[in-house]
């Protein structure tokens, strides 16, 4: 009890301390702004919030770490503590971490995604997949199909009565409902990996959950690209009829800053509609199959190259492995952003290659990855918590609760079907559904793609807010349920 009180005191002291510093900085006007010079009239202006992002990073790291200890003491997963701390200090609660800070910390977020995916790849044993591919496929197919079907149908009927959309024709209704369903069907490999790492879990549920959740998200990323590329122009055409100007594109990148500023005008009647936006804002003109082939194929190839590079480093250099892993993950995040690749797939492939081709030399590497995982999880999940908009949650709680309930039901039925088809034995079969509940980075990225693809359109903001509210609930509930599942299946080792 005293220990808990001390941690509470430490968190309180940290919050008061940072609050005082921010107040002093605001009073003195320090840290931001213009600079004049004795040797000329040059002025520099730093982007707002940039200088404060360091404090936010430190606050998120230390505070979420302390909160994680609190949650652990209360028998809850540590990552729930990280998420809750992010939520408390985030823009919608105490606002000690502003929206600008969250944006500036985007690269840290991308680095975390790469590291988490590398860990996931390291846990994907080909021998297991070869042996259990039917189980993986059965759960992926059944859960995906049922959640997609259930949520699409429900959204189709409730969107208009709830004034989320104002379409009069059926086609755009179906497209939007399908987009929401795709976000709803997505899971969180990051949460699954984090809880597995925290609980030091090993066993059939652990392996199945990891393989299925990664497979599920890969399928959904492809499906989402298809739906938004085919359905996007239809929705934009509708909007164009109303006289709005809209951009055209999607760049599916978990956690990346997706900018969409151009290319709508080119979409009409163009067989090679722009399917993505490059970093410079220009439309990427490729047919959809070519785009998907490059996007996914490129991610696979780059992932393999990164895997080879990792293997070379471990063989030839084998020094400063932890720093090297951080730099590599940083590289994966940057390269993926620059080349329009999927960092999740790139890192996953690299990790899988290392684990399955060079299992012995990958051991020290994954040992370093494991050590780095704690601070990375702290920042990643605290940032995810900071992105939760409590205002939206309170406005849309009824619709969100409906969506959450429906999704849970579909997951339960889908998991049951998957269990029957695959014949996965209990207790793993009984508790595998718990891995599907969590949502975080990938779901947030998909939701933000909807919003950013249709700027200025009320439906996009409504749908974004609804999915955000749903993700917020799953962020908080998911880890607790998955921890429960692992514990009940007897696979934890802490």
């Amino acid at each position, binding site marked *: 009890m005293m220990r808990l009180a001390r941690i509470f005191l430490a968190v309180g002291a940290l919050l008061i301390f940072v609050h005082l*510093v921010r107040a002093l*900085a605001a009073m003195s006007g320090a840290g931001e702004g213009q600079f004049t010079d*004795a040797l000329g009239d040059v002025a520099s202006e730093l982007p707002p919030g940039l200088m404060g992002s360091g404090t936010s990073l430190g606050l998120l*790291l230390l505070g979420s770490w302390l909160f994680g200890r609190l949650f652990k003491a209360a028998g809850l997963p540590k990552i729930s503590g990280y998420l809750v701390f992010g939520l408390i200090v985030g823009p919608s609660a105490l606002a000690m971490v502003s929206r600008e800070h969250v944006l500036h910390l985007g690269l840290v977020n991308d680095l975390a995604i790469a590291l988490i995916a590398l860990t996931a790849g390291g846990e994907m044993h080909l021998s297991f997949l070869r042996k259990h591919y039917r189980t993986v496929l059965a759960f992926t197919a059944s859960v995906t199909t049922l959640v997609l079907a259930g949520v699409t149908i429900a959204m189709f009927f409730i969107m208009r009565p709830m004034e989320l959309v104002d379409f009069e024709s059926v086609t755009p209704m179906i497209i939007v409902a399908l987009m929401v369903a795709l976000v709803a069907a997505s899971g969180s490999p990051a949460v699954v990996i984090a809880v597995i790492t925290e609980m030091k879990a090993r066993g059939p549920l652990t392996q199945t959950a990891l393989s299925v959740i990664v497979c599920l998200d890969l399928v959904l990323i492809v499906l989402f690209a298809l739906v938004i590329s085919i359905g996007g122009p239809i929705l934009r055409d509708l909007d164009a009829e109303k006289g709005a100007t809209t951009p055209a594109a999607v760049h599916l990148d978990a956690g990346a800053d997706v900018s969409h500023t151009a290319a709508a005008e080119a979409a009409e009647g163009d067989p090679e509609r722009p399917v993505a936006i490059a970093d410079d804002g220009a439309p990427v003109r490729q047919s959809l199959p070519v785009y998907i082939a490059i996007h996914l194929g490129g991610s696979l190839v780059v992932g393999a190259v990164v895997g080879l590079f990792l293997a070379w480093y471990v063989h030839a250099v084998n020094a400063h492995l932890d720093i090297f892993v951080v730099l590599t993950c940083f590289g994966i995040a940057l390269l993926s952003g620059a080349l329009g690749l999927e960092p999740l797939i790139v890192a996953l492939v690299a990790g899988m290659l290392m684990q399955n081709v060079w299992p012995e030399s990958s051991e020290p590497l994954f040992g370093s990855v494991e050590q780095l995982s704690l601070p990375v999880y702290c920042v990643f999940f605290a940032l995810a918590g900071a992105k939760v908009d409590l205002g939206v949650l309170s406005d849309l709680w009824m619709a969100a609760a409906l969506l959450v309930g429906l999704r849970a039901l579909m997951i339960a039925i889908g998991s049951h079907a998957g269990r029957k088809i695959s014949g996965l034995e209990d207790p793993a079969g009984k508790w595998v559904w718990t891995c599907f509940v969590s949502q975080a980075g990938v779901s947030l990225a998909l939701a933000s793609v909807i919003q950013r693809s249709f700027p200025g359109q009320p439906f996009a903001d409504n749908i974004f807010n609804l999915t955000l509210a749903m993700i917020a609930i799953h962020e908080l509930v998911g880890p607790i349920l998955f921890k429960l599942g692992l514990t009940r299946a007897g696979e934890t080792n802490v």
Partner: protein
Amino acid sequence: MGQTERFFLTILVLAILALVASSPMTYRLRRSRMFGMLLSGGWLAIAAGALLGESGLGALERETLLRSSPLIMICLGWIGLMVGLQARRELFATLPRALWRLATIDVLVSAVVFGFLGWVAAALWISSVGAPGTEGAAWRVMPALIIGAAAIGWTMETRSMRISRSLDSARLAVFVRGGGALGAIAAITLFGLISKPVARDPASGQLVLDWFGAGAKLAMSLAMAVTLGILGRYALRLAGRSRAELLAVFLGLVALVAGIAADLATSALFTAMLAGVVIANLGGPALRMFERFILRAEHVMAVLLAMLAGMLIDPAIGIWGLGLAMSIAILRLILKPWIFRVGIRPLSEPVGSPLFIAPVRQAPMAMALGLGLVISDPTPLHQKMLTVVLLAGLTSEVLPLLLTLSKSSGVTDAPSGSQDVASAQSGAGEGSS
């Protein structure tokens, strides 16, 4: 590919090269004297940075570099914390009195002589341009301060001096390293304290001297350091012996210290060093492990800072800058061996040992101080001052090299057992960096 991505990818590639360069794979290469000196001063990294920066190939723009300020602040915070953690009472108690005397003489002489030189040069330089509103003394304080603070101490690297294994040589090497370590602490402290009165007037954007603000900033820095130190110590105790937990605490502390320094426009090096001092002196079983952990990334951090410094240099320093850099190098060549001799006078001296001219070489901390100045107030004047500091450092690195090369045939210290060396080295704490 955007500028920011290009910047980070460049940094990344160079950092990986630095990792490979510091690995056992290149051990043979590093044993070469010339290569050792280049690596110890970070000159290769500075050159690579300068080549890629706006003044070189122009691959990276100044604005992009400035947008990476939080990253640079975190690097500086790392260095500051690392230095602060060395400042333990029990370690200081073991240092010989002569070492304290040496450090005191060095700090006083360097700060006064080089600071005065910096003040005069800055006054002449600024008045030669005649920009309006720059008549105030505040504009001269920072150049004088950076020149003075950068001159304190010297590089702690002694391997490339080819010293013999005699007891006297070992003692001298300890003085070089100890003096360098104390100099680093003194330089950060001096810079952190004297830079406090200099502030930007929010209305005019001009530099002014604000004594009341200075007091408040100093009190804030101390309060922050004590609070963070106590918080850090508690977190370290809570983390126990888990490396992952220690890493989370350490990264959190560094980011927080550097971020707060950025928020309040104070020196990240100074604030982090103060926090490190508090943590070090509050003790705790995890401290040694924590220290070892931080030191592991020392080389990469130094290379990263050297690259960033290289990228931010402004070679258009003109005759004033060139003159100032050369004056610093020449003054170092004259003053530093004298300071060293005076400081350690009661000890027996191996005649002609290259270690006597080792203090001529500028401390790597000078680069960190210069970089901190540019990041906290990114004006072309400060970029030019950083360039002067780096140029003076390079010149003062080359001069003793040339001198020792010419004298190397005459250096013959009597060989002795390695046990003597070890016992002599254990007599004083070795600083890092």
